[in-house]
């Protein structure tokens, strides 16, 4: 019944029901969910709306999916249902150069948008490390960040208007220029639990005149952390301020030959963008600060190729973990940036007693850590130890005044941990929004809210 109606509405090519096809959509980058009943690949808003109505008629959950790169199980079909893939809705619909904005479909790959508008001297700022594959729709769902959100802000700062299909299959638009509640702001980061985004107007920024990238190495990770605070304290907010630690530097260098010093305890990768004169000032000031914190190496990328090489190492860091262990588990925590030393110590304290190797590659300027816990999936003891250590790291972040996700989202993985940072009343208040948009809990069920939570159940 479900399959037949979906095929009638969308065409056979846009509906997948073969077990081998469905199996692919049971996973995302975090874990496996339940096999979905069907996967649809709508080609238009109208088809999305039609498929939502059919799923509703058949009582099936609805799971919007971007590229499946999410790290918290946000795209897994936790209760089966119909997975909506936007692989066929992947176009730039309109570029408005004068007003620096573009209207895009949700399946558009993040990096493709910047490539598309580059000739007009523009770019799209949110740049998660997955930007070569992750989609704008998925980025909207998780309110994705990236190294450059230190200066430019996360996805929510760059979404101007949304076209959505709601749980009834009705098409609605929301805009920051509308007088009324900021539904756009609430929908961004709601991980597909409130509506399905079918197109978005996003803000574009003008490409900077000059981009400078510097590398500073330290023989003490605490000194590197203090330098991060020192740079920000000097009144400079770089466009990116990233840290890599001793565990990660050798494998990254081996994989990418970026020129990282492999014997350093920590390396800061610092980028600033703007006008030539200002960048000269930034360079001298940042250099002064890192010297004060006993940097052992200072290097400025002299060419675009050098700059790209330094960034290639950082952005490809996760892939380099294969040189340490067969698998890695990445956490995503945020602490006030002055608490970075304590947070790094907490990561070590959680991992070392259990024999887990932990590397750190992260957005230091935001206080957003990504501890990488190395393990072998085939070893059940290691799996259990990594999960335990991951939980301890989350606890530590909360104890340090931080939070349990800076850019990956809550998804399936962290929903129970949400109780560590929000009270019953806080969660019940959030749940009121869910009740308005999705009273039947059909949109991406089992995500964000702690298990079993409806408003009453939170109590």
């Amino acid at each position, binding site marked *: 019944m479900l399959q037949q109606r979906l095929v009638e509405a969308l065409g056979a090519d846009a509906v997948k029901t073969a077990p081998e096809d469905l199996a692919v959509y049971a996973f995302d980058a975090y874990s496996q969910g339940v096999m979905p009943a069907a996967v649809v690949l709508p080609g238009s808003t109208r088809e999305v709306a039609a498929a939502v109505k059919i799923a509703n008629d058949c009582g099936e959950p609805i799971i919007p999916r971007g590229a499946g790169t999410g790290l918290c199980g946000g795209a897994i079909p936790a209760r089966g249902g119909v997975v909506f893939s936007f692989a066929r809705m992947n176009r730039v619909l309109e570029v408005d150069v004068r007003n620096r904005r573009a209207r895009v479909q949700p399946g558009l790959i993040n990096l493709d948008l910047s490539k598309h508008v580059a000739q007009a001297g523009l770019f799209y700022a949110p740049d998660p490390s997955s930007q070569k594959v992750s989609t704008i729709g998925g980025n909207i769902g998780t309110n994705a960040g990236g190294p450059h959100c230190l200066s430019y802000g996360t996805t929510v700062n760059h979404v101007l208007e949304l076209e959505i299909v709601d749980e009834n299959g009705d098409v*609605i638009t929301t805009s920051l220029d509308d007088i009324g509640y900021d539904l756009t702001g609430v929908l961004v980061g709601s991980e597909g639990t409130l509506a399905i985004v079918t197109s978005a107007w996003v803000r574009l920024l003008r490409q900077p005149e000059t981009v400078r990238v510097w590398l500073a190495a330290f023989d003490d990770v605490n000194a590197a952390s203090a330098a991060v605070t020192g740079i920000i304290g000097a009144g400079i907010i770089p466009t990116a301020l990233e840290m890599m630690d001793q565990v990660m530097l050798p494998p990254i260098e081996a994989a990418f030959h970026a020129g990282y010093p492999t014997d350093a305890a920590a390396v800061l990768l610092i980028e600033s963008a703007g006008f030539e004169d200002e960048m000269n000032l930034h360079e001298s000031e940042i250099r002064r600060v890192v010297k004060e914190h006993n940097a052992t190496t200072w290097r400025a990328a002299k060419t675009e190729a050098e700059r790209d090489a330094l960034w290639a190492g950082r952005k490809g860091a996760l892939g380099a973990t294969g040189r340490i262990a067969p698998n890695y588990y990445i956490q995503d925590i945020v602490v006030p940036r002055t608490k970075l030393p304590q947070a790094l110590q907490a990561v070590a304290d959680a991992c070392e007693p259990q024999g887990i190797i932990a590397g750190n590659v992260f957005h230091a300027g935001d206080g957003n850590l990504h501890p990488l816990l190395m393990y072998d999936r085939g070893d059940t003891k290691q799996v259990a130890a990594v999960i335990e250590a991951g939980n301890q790291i989350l606890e530590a972040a909360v104890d340090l*005044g931080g939070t349990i996700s800076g850019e990956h989202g809550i998804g399936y993985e962290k929903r129970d941990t949400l109780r560590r940072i929000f009270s019953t009343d806080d969660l019940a208040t959030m749940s009121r929004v869910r009740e308005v948009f999705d009273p039947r809990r059909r949109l991406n069920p089992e995500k964000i809210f702690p298990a079993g939570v409806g408003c009453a159940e939170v109590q």
Partner: protein
Amino acid sequence: MIASTAPGRVVAKSIETLRETLGRCDREGLKVLIEGGKTLAGMGPAMPRADVSLATTGLDKMLAHEFADLTCSAQSGMRVAQFNAALAKHGQFVPIDVPLRKKATIGGSLAAGWPGPRRHFYGRARDFVIGSQVCLADGTLANSGGMVVKNVSGYNMEKLYIGSFGTLAVFTHLNFKTLPIPKKRRALIAPLPEATRPRAVAQIASLAVTPAAAFCVEGFGKNIDGSDDIDGRVLLYFEGSEELLERATLDARSALGKAGVPETTIVDTGASESFDRTLDACIANKRGRSITYRLFGTPGTAEERAVRLRDAANRHELFTDVLFDVMNGDVFMRASERDARRFAEKIGACHAELRELEPRCAIVAGDTAARASFEPWGAVPPAIEKMRALKARFDPHGTLNPGRFIGGI
């Protein structure tokens, strides 16, 4: 502790007072008018029935300024100027660009959703809010976000409350990320006749050094700089390092020169005050004889929309002052007359024509009597039913500012 300054008026000096007052009113079916600094009281209709007015101005403390982390937490009743003065002690600020910032509260400013002319440069004030606590209609306190600069844990609840005009909840405190204060500010002011304006606007939009704010103004002379009310002029505000401002000045003068604007005045001392006066002009009222409309849109259509509103008002023989934001597209048009009687005679037909031309133009200022007979918000947005459902879910008894927001919310 409840400090009652007038019958039916409560100034909450503690969270507990706020909770108790709201909870009691909600239980007893009393309607509550939420007050901040009352600077934007010209927005929205008067409440059909207000049993209690609840002011947040007693909640005026900076709770924390973690200057090394570039974060802070402040109670909602803190005045915007007072708030930024406290941050300035450590060389920081938050760009909350609202009129009358010495009187406006941070909670009221954000609740009113005033978007601000520096938003293309720094981001919207809402993008600096990293966490909040609100009091719901029944007195429940609810937190969202936190004290870190990046956070995707749960829904962006603060975004929902910001711009909700106090109809969903009342802010008790807000957490912000802060910015270093720019080293220097500079205003460039030049006469700008209407014939030259389209070329000048195009030049400003493509300046290499983006102005922090840019306005084209026609009128508002007494409010902004004391110049002749009918003069057109352009006001550019730059913020940044000395070197950047020098380059900006050269570029802007050259660009305006190409557009046919020969002379530009540089204002360094008093640039901030000039900027503040421009913001204040957006809601400046001529007692009993003016109404100011605001219309959002893209920057590329701002001039066209401004002229359309102005010409419509002129057709009804009303005086007009016009101000539009070159970088963000906001248009403000004040229609006025020499006396209240003549204004009252003309404004009805003018308002009807403006709404026909631009259904989304909203009234943001004007005496209560002058605007009483008009629906102030304009056309409802496409998602109005979701908004109504949210209001019903958050405030089922219609306790908070009932009827004051768009669509009768």
